[in-house]
């Protein structure tokens, strides 16, 4: 039978193209437009080539924000991943307590970001906050509004409180999928607790763990709302992470050109890291066999 050629079928793809164009491509292109042009208003643009990019790559302000961002992301990953695994390993496996744990663990994940920020902003205030007053009563010199270290601690504790559940729940799901026979075989082989973790639980969890790390990386690398509500990037610039800095630059100072170049690079970094994670995950799975 002869194959029927009918190029009109391409029209069926049109709705998707239109949708994607309006939701992603066109907004992105306006940013690209700002990144390569200079403007003095009135919708008049002057070609600037890679000028903004060169300026941004050399910008010490951006370097500092990137440094703070990496320190923050690294710290919360270093805390949340092991803590999440630890919690997942120690959660009840089934029954009433398992359900209760799951519900309690899921609660922080359900709270809107700026509500989380507000909760911690008030909770930690030295004048009226429960924790702030408590620390003061203990004689601890704690004030996140004028001490950079205290601000960092507050933001990290807040993020750990908010997101460790996600890691724990994903790991818990991974652990639940391990057949009982593995544990039975390990007992019969006289494996110790570390061996069970190292050779049974960790390999079986590694898939979901990778997803957990990826999600936490992306989310924390783009974090904006919570630190903005709690510290506003301060004291000084000490908690000004990339997103906060970007907003300051774009909307505070109205430096649209540098901000657009900044956001494109920001976007590409996240895309690159996600792609690396994806590649690792795919090659891992193909090595799995049947």
């Amino acid at each position, binding site marked *: 039978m002869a194959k029927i050629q009918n190029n009109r079928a391409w029209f069926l793809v049109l709705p998707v193209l239109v949708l994607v164009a309006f939701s992603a491509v066109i907004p992105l292109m306006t940013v690209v437009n700002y990144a390569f042009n200079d403007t003095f208003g009135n919708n008049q643009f002057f070609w600037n080539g890679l000028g903004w990019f060169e300026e941004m790559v050399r910008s010490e302000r951006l370097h500092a924000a990137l440094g703070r961002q990496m320190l923050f992301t690294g710290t919360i990953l270093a805390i949340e991943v092991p803590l999440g695994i630890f919690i997942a390993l120690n959660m009840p496996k089934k029954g009433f307590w398992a359900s209760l744990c799951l519900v309690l663990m899921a609660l922080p994940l359900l709270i809107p970001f700026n509500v989380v920020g507000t909760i911690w902003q008030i909770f930690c205030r030295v004048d009226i906050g429960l924790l702030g007053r408590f620390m003061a009563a203990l004689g601890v010199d704690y004030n996140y509004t004028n001490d950079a270290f205290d601000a960092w601690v507050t933001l990290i504790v807040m993020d750990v409180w908010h997101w460790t559940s996600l890691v724990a729940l994903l790991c818990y799901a991974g652990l639940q999928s391990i057949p009982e*026979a593995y544990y*039975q075989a390990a*007992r*019969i082989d*006289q494996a110790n607790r570390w*061996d069970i973790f190292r*050779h049974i639980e960790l*390999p079986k969890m590694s898939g979901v763990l990778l997803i957990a790390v990826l999600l936490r990386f992306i989310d924390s690398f783009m974090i904006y709302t919570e630190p903005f509500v709690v510290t506003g990037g301060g004291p000084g610039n000490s908690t000004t992470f990339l997103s906060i800095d970007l907003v300051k630059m774009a909307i505070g100072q109205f430096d649209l050109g540098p901000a657009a170049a900044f956001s494109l690079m920001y976007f590409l970094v996240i895309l690159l890291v996600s792609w690396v994670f994806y590649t690792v995950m795919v090659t891992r799975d193909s090595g799995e*066999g*049947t």
Partner: protein
Amino acid sequence: MAQITLSDLAHTYASNGTTDSDFALKAMNHVWQEGGAYALLGPSGCGKTTLLNIISGLIMPSQGRVLFDGADVTNLPAEKRNIAQVFQFPVVYDTMTVRENLAFPLKNRGLTRAAVQARVGLIAGMIGLEDILDRKARGLTTDAKQKISLGRGMVRESVNAILFDEPLTVIDPHLKWELRTQLKSLHRELGHTMIYVTHDQIEALTFADTVVMMHEGRVLQMGTPESLFETPAHTFVGHFIGSPGMNFLDATIEGNTAVIDGQRISLNAHYRTALGHTQVGIRPEYVEFTAEEGLPVVIQHIEDVGHRRIVHALVGETPIAVSVQEGQPFDTSMNRVRFVPGKINIYSDSWRVQGEAF
């Protein structure tokens, strides 16, 4: 190696089982000989895996005791019992190489490097894993993974027993045959007490010296494959073993004759008038078609399975299967059957009754 004694053993998964049906395993007393090859045979849910896990210590029995060589091990956990167990689905340590997998149980018991190497080499050679010893276990086929599990089960020299829980379920049919034969020869070479759980009668009958036939938490019969075939102790054993299973025909027993559907059949033994529901049990292999004498039958349909034909017929209302070997006389004029004398078993309320010689 050890002799395994089950003393008044029973198990229930309910918190306080009282009625008979609560018990996944009904009270039993058995002694399993050192170095024997046993098969626990029965349909799904008959309690065979429960019994296996009680022997290995993964489950604590609700009542009774388990003894290894006379020593009570009932309260010892699996890791202290010195047994090996292979599970239905392959359990391998993905992060380790095949060699490390096999060495793992030995290393955990503090064997020297040389001893581990020697033993791993020996077992790998026996089950054909030599070529892939240095590959990572992750990514191997299911067959190979299950071979690793089998190898890990057999690698320890001094185990009390090696337990297999339907280990060939996931194996390809052609490899199944090969592995089963290997297991059998490994048993001969290593001499361990081996207990093999399966629902496949061929696996059980080819592997074991002693087959333990289970049904609904009860051991119905324990004996050689031959005795299970020739003299099933219970009608269920008759049904389960053989393909097709044994024929059972309602009959009245009067001394050395059985009356089926008004026809008299003489028996090789004398039976006291049995009470209850009495039946004659005869294997399809021991039924022959004849032209003149015997029970009249109505043939329903014939299955040709290559080397023999299986004829399904009716004796009165009761279905009967007859296995006709190649070359055996069989044509349309033959509408009666006779039973091979001495191969007839008599059952009263499902249990076999032993006849008395004249």
